[in-house]
């Protein structure tokens, strides 16, 4: 097959160059670049006008337009007149359309990479403002809670019931599964080590204390962050996008009381109960390892657990659950209320709610554990 030349040039007068376009111009078939024409112009000084001949042009699509647009821009810069008359009528019209509105020069400003110092500065400012927002949000939430106990509740009781159900009862299956498995794992790991000392039955103490005091609460907290915290952020974020929160504001109904408070109360009330439940499921997990698999007597296991797990362990577990409930619902609601006004912002809000929630849980666990150690409980 003979290679088709799509473009060639001939000088017809002293200041005029004729550009012949021919063949089929199609996207994906590597049509000539605008540079070819520009080099031709450079190599032949004194050109003032450019004419086009398209008699042999068979078929064309956007590739010809891209070529022509580049050529036109370059010719304009060099003050060379282009005689568009020779072009197909469709090309002329589309070119006019494409050049009708001049290119917005400052539209591309976002692409500029900020300098390192710039970034440090903006990040620092953002950190300060987000800390301010966080403190403001916590303060408002606190005021709303106080208002709830002093005066009239600013939300609908049915909402509250719904959130109690959503964050409590509906979380039971996943909490059961996870804490049963965690109890099982603790049991296995523990019993293998304890066996070396012939102290298998102390696995009950290990599983009982670990689950009731720490692990139950932590696992529940992480489940709540992934399940309920994300849901809160997505719900509130979508309401932000739909202008539903604006609609509340214009009615003088405070979103903090009407939307955030029932969610926070619902989760905070349910969290300690879930933690206690997780503890029981964990102990059951340990029992599955100890009794049917390793043949420890069931009564011995239960006696060991009841002796080992004291009231203070239970209270620490419940307290941690309460703290996690506050932290998870706070981060979920905060991210939801801060949400931007687009679909992707809702996704970001949910992600950020989970991350914030889990980080807060781990930090709080560390603080509480250290405090308990210092206080000797």
């Amino acid at each position: 097959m003979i290679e088709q030349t799509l473009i060639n040039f001939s000088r017809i007068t002293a200041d005029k160059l004729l550009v012949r376009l021919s063949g089929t111009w199609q996207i994906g078939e590597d049509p000539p670049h605008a540079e070819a024409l520009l080099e031709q112009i450079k190599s032949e000084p004194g050109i003032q006008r450019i004419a086009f001949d398209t008699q042999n042009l068979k078929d064309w699509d956007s590739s010809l337009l891209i070529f022509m647009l580049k050529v036109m821009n370059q010719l304009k810069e060099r003050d060379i007149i282009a005689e568009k008359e020779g072009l197909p009528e469709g090309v002329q019209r589309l070119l006019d359309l494409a050049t009708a509105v001049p290119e917005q020069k400052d539209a591309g400003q976002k692409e500029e990479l900020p300098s390192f110092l710039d970034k440090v500065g903006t990040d620092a400012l953002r950190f300060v403002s987000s800390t301010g927002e966080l403190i403001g949000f916590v303060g408002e939430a606190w005021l709303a809670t106080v208002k709830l106990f002093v005066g009239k509740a600013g939300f609908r009781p049915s909402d509250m019931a719904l959130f109690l159900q959503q964050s409590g009862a509906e979380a039971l299956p996943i909490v059961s599964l996870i804490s049963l498995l965690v109890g099982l794992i603790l049991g296995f790991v523990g019993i293998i080590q304890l066996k070396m000392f012939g102290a298998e039955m102390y696995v009950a103490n290990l599983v009982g204390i670990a689950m009731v005091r720490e692990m139950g609460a932590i696992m529940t907290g992480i489940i709540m962050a992934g399940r309920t915290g994300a849901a809160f952020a997505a719900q509130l974020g979508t309401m932000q996008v739909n202008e539903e929160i604006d609609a509340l504001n214009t009615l003088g109904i405070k979103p903090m009381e009407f939307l955030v408070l029932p969610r926070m109360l619902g989760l905070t009330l349910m969290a300690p109960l879930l933690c206690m439940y997780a503890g029981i499921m964990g102990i059951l997990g340990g029992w599955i390892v100890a009794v049917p698999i390793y043949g420890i007597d069931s009564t011995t296991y239960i006696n060991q657990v009841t002796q080992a797990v004291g009231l203070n362990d239970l209270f620490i577990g419940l307290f941690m659950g309460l703290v996690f409930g506050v932290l998870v619902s706070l981060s979920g609601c905060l991210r939801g209320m801060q949400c931007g006004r687009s679909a992707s912002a809702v996704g970001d809000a949910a992600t950020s709610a989970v991350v914030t929630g889990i980080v807060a849980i781990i930090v709080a666990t560390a603080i509480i554990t250290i405090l308990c150690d210092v206080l000797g409980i």
Partner: protein
Amino acid sequence: MTETDTNKEAHIKVKDLTMAYGSFVVMRDLNFSVNRGDIFIIMGGSGCGKSTLMKHLIGLNPPAKGRVLYGDMSFWETGSKQREQFMRRFGVLYQSGALWSSMTLAENIALPLEQYTDLGPGQIRELVSLKLALVGLAGFETFYPSEISGGMRKRAGLARAMALDPEILFFDEPSAGLDPVSSKRLDDLILELRDTLGATVVVVTHELASIFTIGNNSVFLDPETRTMIANGDPHKLLEESKDPRVQRFLRRGEVEEASGGEAWLKKSAKPS
């Protein structure tokens, strides 16, 4: 329009208002007033800040500079308690209806009533049915917003905006996303509400048909100069304004720009 001519008391006054998001100025030096009983149109091209201006009027965004006066009261300079009191007299219809998606239509309309009146559940139910009937949605009380069409959501939003019999009704792009017939019906409803409730109506729109059917006062925002470039009855603007930008807008761009701004006089496009 005659009844507003006799009653020229300014209901909303905007003085030297500058609107900004952070350091980005959306509009500056806005000065206009909305009279009691007006149907006031906020118009301008897409993205010029019409909805932002409405948000300033209803108290969602604080002004960067300047004042919004309701009667003699400066909206942003009074205490938050009084501001809230004031906001209760607004009814707002958002672009997408903004119904609370977790509640049925009846609950949506009942919420403002429960918050601000001492009515019993029975009376509230009756009021809710009435408001829904007014917008042609009788019998849809138990539907959730996701179960009805966009046009119905908008009408339900209007029913909610009217729940407390507001003094001022704000509409954000009421005809966006509606077919011509529904949009016309909404326009008729707006006129009806103004006449029967005596409410002042502020409408953000760029639908020419609506502008000329319902509007008797307006402000025109220009995104290039970032300020208002015309103010007054849209019919008068159409006939008298010499500004080519206003003319282009009000005649759907059918003005020959090059011919010195006089060409539009020959084309006497008549408003409906």
